[in-house]
Every structure is written in structure tokens, then in C-alpha cells.
């Protein structure tokens, strides 16, 4: 009958903790990237002005907000 030793549990917890830190770092970089995309869309929209530009701008801002919100969510649930 398999048993779980305290060392196994500790190893699992350390792995999960490292995974959590790795995910949070990835999400922070993603959020920074999302903010750069907002600036990029702004730059592009000023260069070529079309009817679609405001929609793309709004989308990039929502996307950046979601990326930042995801950090908080991941911090909370992991």
C-alpha cells in the first residue's frame, strides 16, 4: 500500500510554489508586453487613420487590463 511521506509532501509543495512563481513571472512579462502593444496600436493608429483604429485601440486597452487582472487572479487562486 503506497504511503505519502512528509518529504514527498514537502517536495510537491516546493514544486508547486516554484511553478506559481514561474507563472507569475510569465504573467508579469505578458502584462508588460500587453502595455507595449497598447502603445504600438496607438502609434499605428496615428500613422494610418481608418475607421477601425478606435476599435483596435479599445481592444488593446481591454487586453492589457485583462493581462494585469490575470496576475491578481493567478496570485489569488494558485
Amino acid at each position, binding site marked *: 500500500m503506497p504511503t505519502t511521506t512528509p518529504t514527498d509532501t514537502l517536495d510537491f509543495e516546493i514544486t508547486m510554489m516554484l511553478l506559481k512563481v514561474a507563472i507569475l513571472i*510569465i504573467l508579469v512579462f*505578458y502584462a508588460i508586453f500587453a502595455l507595449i502593444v497598447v*502603445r*504600438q496600436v496607438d502609434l499605428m493608429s496615428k*500613422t494610418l*487613420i481608418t475607421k477601425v483604429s478606435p476599435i*483596435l485601440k479599445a*481592444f488593446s486597452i481591454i487586453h492589457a487590463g485583462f493581462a494585469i487582472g490575470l496576475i491578481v487572479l493567478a496570485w489569488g*487562486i494558485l
Partner: protein
Amino acid sequence: MFTAYVEHPTDCSFEGQDNDEKILLLLRAHPITNLKWIIPAVLLFLVPFFVPLVFQFLHLDLSTIPQTFEIVFLIINYLLVLIITFEGFLNWYFNVYIVTEKNLVDIDFHSLLFKNIDVAPLRNIEDTASSMGGILNSIFHYGNVFIQTAGASRNIDFHSVPRPHHVADFILDEAHKIYGRGRDAYHHPD
């Protein structure tokens, strides 16, 4: 709105456009060139469906991973799909070639924040050439247009645009019009 070849586009302008300058032709790369980001996006979209099969194949137990981690991995995966799609679309939509009554304008966004705008006056255009080669190019009728300009100014190339031969001819016709106007302007029959 989302086409690659628009003659006399309305509701569209660009940075540095004069008030009396009309856009005659707006070009983008042919939509089929978007396959280079659509295919990776679709594959990445399908990844979560194959993960359980891979785990099963490797005799690993997926249930050891907490469900919260699975959810976060899933969200990150679909965020990547979203950003690949969005970036691909942005690059296609905003990398344009414009022919106006006065100039040729080549707007390029190479990376996230690198912008390059080449402008060549139509009066400086000496020669145009077009090329079309390859299976996709022949099927979907798109190719490159090379525009040679006078003097030390940079040549302008339109890459993967629809109807390249027609575009090359169109640009040369417009240049001839300008040249004709210029010749008449300097012609003083006393």
C-alpha cells in the same frame, strides 16, 4: 475595410498627408500571406485538446496537477493564441503601401515599436517592375512590385501585393501624368 487592394479609398488617411492630396491606391500584402501566423495560432489553439492524450501516452497522471494550475495554464495558452492573432492582424493591417496624387508611401512596422515610412515623389519615379513566382503567388495572383526612383533616393518595393503587374502599370501611368504636367509647366512657347 479589410481588403488588400483598394482604389480611391474613403475614410482613410495617413500621417503627413497634405490637405489637397488624394489617395489613389491603398495596398496591403495579400490576405493569404497571413497563413504564416494563422497556422501557428490554430495549432496552439488545439494544444489543450491533445495534452491529456500526451500525458496518457507518457503514462503520467494528469490528476496530480491541481485544477487551479490547469485553469491558469489554459488561460495562458489562449492568451498566447489571442496575442499571436492580434499581432498578426495588426502587422498585416497597418503595413500598407499608398499611392497618392503626389507620392508613393511605404509604411512599415517591423517590430513592436519600430516604424519606417518611405516616401518617394511620383515625379522621381523612373521605372517600375513586377514579379510573381511560386505556387501560392500564381494561385492567388500576388507578387512584388519594384519601383526605381531617380537620384540617391531609396528604391521602394511593394511586397506580396495583389495584382502586381496592374499596380506597376498604374504607378507608371500616374508618374507619366505628373511628368506630362511638369513638362507642360516648363514649356513656354513664346
